[in-house]
């Protein structure tokens, strides 16, 4: 999301800079008596378009909606990139990406979970972990145990919450 934000910000900045330059050039050239670069026909149309014009209204509504969507998208809390690990031993952090990848591997290797996936949410000091994937039902507990064991070695706090949404592995004919 950070990359998307940066690209969007750069594009918006470029558009604003271009528009600003256009206004400056047009204003100076108009004051000099030779309006440029906006064509005379465009200028006449812009000057005669009322705020109540249908095109202006529709454009305003669309721009307003896009702005609202962008605002809501930015206000939605995101998962932190790094999580505070065992607090008693001092302040240190571990990246969420590492935790998720290593825990998913632990579920796969330790309990034979297929397509294992681990998602970590919650506040930096209070982890909420969800395990998903496919496994035989009798391996569900082993999967959770493997993930918990891995998390403890990755510095997870003791009060973490682990939930699982494991699907029953289809019987192979």
């Amino acid at each position, binding site marked *: 999301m950070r990359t998307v934000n940066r690209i969007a910000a750069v594009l918006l900045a470029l558009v604003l800079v271009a528009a600003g330059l256009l206004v400056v050039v047009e204003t100076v050239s108009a004051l000099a008596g030779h309006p440029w670069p906006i064509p005379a026909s465009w200028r006449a149309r812009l000057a005669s378009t009322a705020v109540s014009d249908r095109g202006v209204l529709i454009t305003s509504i669309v721009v307003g909606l896009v702005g609202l969507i962008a605002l809501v998208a930015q206000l939605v809390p995101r998962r932190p990139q790094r999580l505070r*690990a065992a607090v008693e*031993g001092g302040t240190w*952090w571990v990246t969420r990406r590492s935790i998720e990848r290593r825990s998913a591997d632990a579920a796969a290797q330790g309990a034979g979970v297929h397509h294992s996936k681990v998602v970590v949410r919650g506040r930096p000091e209070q982890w909420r972990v969800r395990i998903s994937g496919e496994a035989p039902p009798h391996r569900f507990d082993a999967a959770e145990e493997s993930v918990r064991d891995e998390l403890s070695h990755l510095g997870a706090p003791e009060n973490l919450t682990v939930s699982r949404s494991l699907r029953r592995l289809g019987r192979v004919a």
Partner: protein
Amino acid sequence: MVRREDIARSVADAVTAVPGVAGLHPGFGVEVATHFSGGKLVGVRLGGEAVEVYLTADRAPLQAVAEAAAEAATRVLSAVGDSRPVNVVVADVVPAAMDRRSSSRG
């Protein structure tokens, strides 16, 4: 006066000498680095209220590695009169670290 790049290099050397630290890590997104005239040192950020060290671990449990790395960095900083806290971030874990742990338990 000790140069900024020398401090960063000393911190990096001390941290990478810690058993369990496979190397420094640039982080994700904005690169974690100390910039100076003529170059940069990736994995150590000296600016700000706390010094940040991003590393790749190749040994578990991570807590021991992170604490040792923090102590090593703090020692270097204390030697030059810098009392800022050190934030250690384990940015990546070498899979072999977990495999070794598993085999040592078995």
